[in-house]
């Protein structure tokens, strides 16, 4: 590791420590009561959490971390039921078919909002479900290999891509209407560059494609490539936020790069069916929101770079985030010529 890389890593670590210290000092739900009685003895048995993705990915891990935090807080067991497939469709369908009795909760990501934006017959996470808590909110970045010598920063990357006449490549999850594809449209429209997006639905082959030089750049969230950043293998050249967080202060943000669009965020949260009994929903809100500030959960979020920006939304904040996101996607889909149902 060169001295420069070491200093960069050290500065990131220091910034992280400062943020962690701040997070330990005060947390979003500290003001909630330390305990709460469930209505009429509820819950009398273990809860079930439907997770529409596999256990090893980001959703599987956050589901486990949150389930353990809730159990640690309340002594109520939570069985996780993974139903992967169809970009979250299978899990959502299974959840909507489960009894709305407050014993089954759902983990889901912003894909549920974009799916509803594209097809309004699919459940709206802000109306058909009640968000208990949004516990992870993160942003995206563009990465290149640290050893790359054809370009070294955002400006030289844009110039190089333009010179390739559409032959430059970037790895991402370019599913129709996805956050990645929409954001890339914003970027290519704003810069005038043409870049071929290569679709990788799984993380490992996507990161391997950049590490092995199969593609020129990578679109990803920092928590997912933290090991590559810590090892000095990848480096971010653009932070897709209007104001970069302190940990990435030396990476250009949208304002620095002269890109004028509203960034889309990746978020993960926990939901209950809107038809569930109101008093049970209130208890679930308390349990999941309070669990967000449990020490173990905060440590988990920190390890995943999920404390760089405000990662917490309560029920109303989550509804607002989802509603804004749906509106934003719908507007973009129309300009992209996608059929919005």
């Amino acid at each position, binding site marked *: 590791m060169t001295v420069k890389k070491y200093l960069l890593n050290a500065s990131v670590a220091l910034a992280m420590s400062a943020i962690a210290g701040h997070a330990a000092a005060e947390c979003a739900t500290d003001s909630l009561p330390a305990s709460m009685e469930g209505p009429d003895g509820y819950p009398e048995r273990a809860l079930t959490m439907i997770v529409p993705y596999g256990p090893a990915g980001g959703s599987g891990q956050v589901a486990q971390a949150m389930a353990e935090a809730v159990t640690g807080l309340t002594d109520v067991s939570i069985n996780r039921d993974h139903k992967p497939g169809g970009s979250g469709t*299978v899990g*959502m*369908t299974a959840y909507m078919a489960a009894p709305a009795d407050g014993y089954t909760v759902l983990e889901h990501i912003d894909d549920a909002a974009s799916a509803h934006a594209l097809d309004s017959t699919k459940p709206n996470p802000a109306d058909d479900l009640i968000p208990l808590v949004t516990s992870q909110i993160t942003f995206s970045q563009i990465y290149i290999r640290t050893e790359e010598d054809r370009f070294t920063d955002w400006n030289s990357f844009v110039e190089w891509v333009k010179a390739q006449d559409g032959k430059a490549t970037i790895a991402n999850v370019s599913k*129709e209407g996805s956050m990645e594809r929409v954001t890339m449209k914003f970027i290519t429209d704003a810069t005038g560059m043409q870049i071929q997006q290569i679709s990788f639905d799984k993380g490992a082959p996507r*990161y391997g*494609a950049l*590490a092995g030089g199969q593609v020129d750049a990578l679109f990803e969230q920092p928590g997912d490539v933290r090991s590559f950043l810590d090892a000095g293998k990848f480096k971010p050249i653009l932070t897709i936020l209007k104001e970069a967080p302190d940990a990435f202060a030396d990476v250009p943000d949208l304002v620095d790069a002269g890109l004028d669009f509203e960034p889309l965020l990746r978020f993960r949260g926990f939901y209950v069916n809107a038809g569930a009994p109101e008093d049970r929903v209130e208890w679930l809100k308390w349990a999941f929101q309070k669990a967000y500030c449990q020490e173990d959960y905060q440590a988990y979020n920190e390890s995943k770079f999920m404390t760089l920006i405000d990662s917490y939304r309560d029920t109303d904040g989550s509804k607002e985030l989802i509603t804004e996101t749906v509106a934003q996607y719908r507007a973009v889909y129309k300009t992209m010529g996608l059929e919005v149902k």
Partner: protein
Amino acid sequence: MDAFNNFLTGTVTLFSDPIGILIFFGGVVGGMLFGAIPGVSMLTLAAILLPFTAHLSPEHGIMLFSVIYCTGVYGGAITAILFNIPGAPENAPTAFDGYPMTQNGEAGKAVGAAVMCSAIGGVASCIVMMAATAAIADWAISAFGPPEIFALVFFGLAVAASVGAKSFWKGWLSIMAGLMIAVVGLDPVGGLERYNFDMPYLAAGIHFIPTILGFFAVSEIFVQAEKKATGSYNAPKLSVDFPTFKELWQHKIAVVRSAIIGFFCGVLPGIGATLAAFMGYNEAVRWSKDREGFGKGKMEGVISSETANNAATGAAMIPLLALGLPGGALTAMMVGVFQMHDMEPGPLVFINSPDLVWVVFAAMFFANLSILLVGFLEAKTIVNLLRIPFQYLAPLILLLATVGAYAVRGLTIDVVVMFVAGVAGFFLRRSGYSVAGIVLGLILGKIGEQTFAQAMQMLHFEFSGFLGRPIALGLLIAGFITILASIYGAFFKKVPASSSAG
């Protein structure tokens, strides 16, 4: 020499810790048992254990999973041989010749060959893994992109089509049927729904585990039940005679070839042991002077498949540990174990946690060796399951297969898929089609479609782009030559393609 010293240090660390020894042997036995019980697999055990690894040290947690990986891949061979039920997709080719060997009264020889060759394949790949993990990982990801992986899949399908069924056309139709099933669900690039008939559950596609359970286990029960009903049922002859050293030595070239194939497939992220086993088996058939003997109980078939799939286990650890890139479901769970301990697999693991890496390497080495000891003891007892009368064994297998199909995703449709595949497999096998070809088409079809789409995007939708990638071009040419050779064999030499129990 450094590697050897590190290995010794890892071995001492592993065996000087009583809890470590306990976890090691727990993993060895657990992996074998869950691999051997029809309907569950090493993945089931790993998923159950995943949350508990938070309470273990990182060394113990990762070591446990790597041991389960080695012995679980072997364990699935037992049921493939005894009951035609592959414990996992990577054991499917083992059943092609292993089950006919059981029917021929050679169950002991088949199990013995699987034990011996699983251990050889696993130990060989461990040695290469210990010697050159970082260098191999860097080479694999820079030399093998989507175009090369697609070309590899194409070559694998071309070889499989020519060896699986009773005729050229039936071989290809079986593969094509598998490819058609593979396109059900979301397309891997644009996320568009295909052939799901507005059924949300079908949007996730047809999973290959219920399909394998249906085509192999359920259809086999139907076949045996028909024989029982018509009075032509013969109980498999029980035998615990293991192969002699001389018998195994005759297949030394097959072992070396399959170990190389297995290692090569295992090191590619997202490919792993399943393709390794099929490729190992297919190449054994292709290079054999007695191609017609495959599928009828040839020991070389078991040897090739089992050497290759265990050789893939050590290789799959290379991209995981060196780059943080898991190759399959179990290695993806290992990433979860790392992360539970605030660690990420990847280049920093070698710098920050060399002790952990070498304890894992030593554990995998000894887990593969232990297959020899525990495997022989286990095999001597499990073969006795054949004593259970069919009318009692069949419902038990059906029950376990049903649980296994449902457990994959907790979806009833997977149980339906299993029984539909069972009925279809019953009739297809009678007609000389290859159910193994269908399963291979399904498994490789998903990988092939995705990598083809990615390759086309990378090559700017120009086929000529393959000309500039020598490895991809070489594999495509090899695939076309294989197809031409099978056409020549089928239509000009008037020698039918080999038949198979598949």
